[in-house]
């Protein structure tokens, strides 16, 4: 007890612990909500009502799904590497909480006040692809391996234009602190970064879809080619964790996108956390809309798009940004 008292637990640590607990709840609730929303959106795009049986308008469908996943037997495939196989979903899911820490949800509403917030998110987001590699290799399944190979090539490629697009914003704001980036934007749409950096916004949006492995860039799990890609062999909650991590990452990329380009929690008339949530969900709905509309691109096409178009475009945009900053 003496040692603890000596430490004089600072406010930041308390804040961190509370924030992690709150974020766990946030990720869980929004994950469930997104699963339900995705199925409803898919349903309505496909001219059917979507889930309707569990609860009124099927709102408990996600709970039923989760119960089913939890109840399933956990089978380890023959010849699989136990450590890699079961480590992968955990590695995929764990860093997700860290990603939310530096995000400012509303005025003063953040988990960790950190100058390098943007960098923290980008650094830990890279862990997901390590998890995919572990899953692909550990499954002892050729489809999973092909899926992992695709995941690696895709996420390494798309990290570059993503970073370049984000860098343009960071250079403009002169900081990597997410709160300060929001502070430099105004409340009205023409005061947001998207008005100044439409190219970076476009690149970021494409990359955000690609980095979260969402259709039409869902090649690592392309079910009509690779059965289910890297998670072919995963039963029950093993798959469930991957699934939840995917949705959590979707929330992260849209939250970061809203922060960088759409003014964060600032909005017309009344600033506040509701604007932030509204922007996140608008972003997510657009991603869902795209998923349920377009066919999947081919693997060489997705890489060509990145290397031949997005990266040069992002470089030019960055150059233009620097020139503009130097001139102004």
């Amino acid at each position, binding site marked *: 007890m003496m040692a603890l008292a000596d430490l004089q637990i600072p406010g930041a640590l308390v804040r961190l612990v509370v924030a992690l607990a709150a974020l766990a709840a946030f990720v869980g609730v929004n994950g469930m909500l997104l699963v339900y929303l995705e199925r409803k959106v898919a349903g309505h*795009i496909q*001219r059917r009502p979507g889930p309707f049986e569990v609860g009124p308008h099927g709102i408990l469908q996600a709970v039923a799904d989760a119960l089913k996943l939890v109840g399933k037997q956990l089978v380890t495939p023959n010849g699989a590497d136990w450590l890699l196989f079961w480590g992968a979903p955990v590695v995929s899911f764990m860093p997700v909480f860290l990603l939310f820490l530096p995000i400012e949800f509303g005025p003063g509403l953040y988990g960790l006040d950190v100058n390098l917030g943007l960098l923290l998110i980008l650094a830990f987001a890279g862990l997901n692809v390590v998890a995919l590699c572990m899953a692909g290799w550990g499954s002892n399944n*050729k489809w999973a391996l092909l899926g992992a190979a695709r995941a690696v090539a895709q996420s390494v490629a798309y990290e570059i234009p993503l970073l370049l697009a984000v860098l343009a914003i960071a250079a403009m704001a002169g900081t990597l602190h997410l709160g300060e980036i929001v502070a430099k934007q105004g409340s009205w749409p023409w005061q947001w970064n998207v008005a100044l950096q439409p190219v970076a916004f476009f690149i970021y949006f494409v990359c955000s879809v690609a980095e979260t492995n969402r259709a*039409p860039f*869902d090649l690592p799990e392309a079910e*009509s080619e690779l059965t289910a890609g890297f998670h072919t062999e995963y039963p029950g909650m093993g798959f469930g964790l991957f699934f939840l991590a995917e949705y959590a990452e979707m929330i992260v990329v849209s939250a970061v996108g809203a922060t960088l380009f759409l003014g964060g929690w600032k909005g017309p008339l009344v600033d506040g956390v509701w604007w932030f949530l509204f922007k996140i969900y608008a972003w997510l709905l657009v991603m869902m809309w795209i998923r349920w509309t*377009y066919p*999947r691109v081919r693997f060489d096409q997705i890489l060509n798009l990145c290397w031949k178009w997005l990266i040069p475009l992002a470089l030019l945009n960055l150059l233009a940004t620097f020139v503009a900053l130097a001139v102004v």
Partner: protein
Amino acid sequence: MREQVLESLAGAPRLVEWPCGGRQVFLEPSALPAAMCRLKADGMLLEDVTVTEYAEGCEAVYHLSNPQTLDRVTLHALAATNGGGAAVFPTVSHIFQGADWHEREAMDFFPVTFTGHPTPLPLLLAPEMVDEKPLSRPVDKRSSIFTVMDYSAVVGAPSAAPLIGWEDEIPAPPPVHAIFSEGLPDAPGDFYTRHFQATGEPDRLILNMGPQHPSTHGVLRVILELDGEYIVRAEPVLGYIHRMHELMGQNRKAGQFLPNMGRVDYLHALGWNHALVLAVEQLAGIEVPERAELLRILTVELNRISSHLLWWGAYLLDLGAFTPIMYGFDDRETIMDLLQLATGSRLTYCYHRFGGVSHEPMPGFYEGVKDFIDGFDARLAMYKDLVTENIILRKRVEGVGEMDLDVCRRYGCTGPVIRGSGLAFDVRRAWPYSLYSEFDFTIPVRTEGDALARYLVRMDEMAESARIIKQVLERIPGAAGGHLHPKAPKQDFTLPKGVARGVVEAARGLVAVEVISDGGKTPYRMRLRSPCFSNLSCFAEVSRGTLLADAVSTLGSLDLVIPEIDR
């Protein structure tokens, strides 16, 4: 008689014109490769190989047609089964690559061998069943070929040498791989994987696509040899849903066999219905009243649209677009409701009867069809805007799975596949049956030969089918006769002796049902020619060197129905 025929054949191939269509050439088995070389040079396409076992031996019948000039030639070769051994034919699989699978299928079912066949593996039967020969009959149950066919016409018939003569050198078949003589090396994997591995380069990634894979649309299995994601070699493995429909056709009466047709191709059941009734009507000389013909065309074309709609949705699902299939099913549901009013069933229709159709449609059918067809053009336009014009889709299908006319001819590809490769070959126009010659419709053709061409051909075909339906609806109120000819025989009547072949254009291509009857209670032989079987046989060649994703796209663009391939 037999000696006379053989003596006549030993001299030269004989040409006989039979009323049931086309030139029939009778020749010795050894003359087959030369004849095939000539017919291939003439631009012929190998439709089918029908093997039948008679008391005298096994007869192999090669059905060829020229998709350009619409000539038809049928080669008959009879090989004796000496002392219970196998009848021996030379392989023609190196001339017409499509014959490869036909020959393997025949070797599964009959005691025949095709000498020089490069991969004499069982095709439809499980490797353990390879000695069963399910279609072979006990010696006392075999009929003489002379009771079935007017074989005596061969004697004194003119020589067919000008038709099939070949002066150039006949190519030799490729050498048979050593594993077929020395036996398989010990290796993990099942029978087909081991063969596949042994005939390829060592240490490549061998991948089994199927029999449970989302984009093989059923229990098709393709073994792939991959270099990265590029396909070095592909080999389809068939037979996972083989039900031996041809044997079922032999042990029940033709009328009792009708419901089987809906199970062969469950997506265009009425097309197969039509082929069987055409064959039987041809054989027994049964007439069909105009009204019944119109009802047949109406239902067949509706069924064709529903089949194409399902293909459309499923193909886009292969390409990763989840939504179009729901829109396709929306329309398809309407068609199924309508066909239910007409035929009484929703999927495995059995509407056609010998001499007509089973009954008049229920009230509300014609109005429903009219409503549906009137709105269908707008739906097609929406599909075009929504899907066909999409840049991602274009990039996934343009230049993918290119097949030129030569590939189609060598493998016997028909239907939208050959029409996507530049030939307007459609049985409805080529050798019009039913009342198709009286309707105004065009055959959509594309010359690119890629997946997009096949896609667009099918989309246009739906519009053409709708056009036919509109014309039928106009004609049907004033059509003569009822739904069944008053003199139509009972459905379980006994077929007269003879051979007949009903050829129709189904949604996937040329469907032919060949009925051979020796006058017994049940047909002596029932041969089903499936278009998917031939269309798929080219996959190994077309997919070579392409990406895995392109192979999926190619496979989908062939519009495969696995039960139809396996039969």
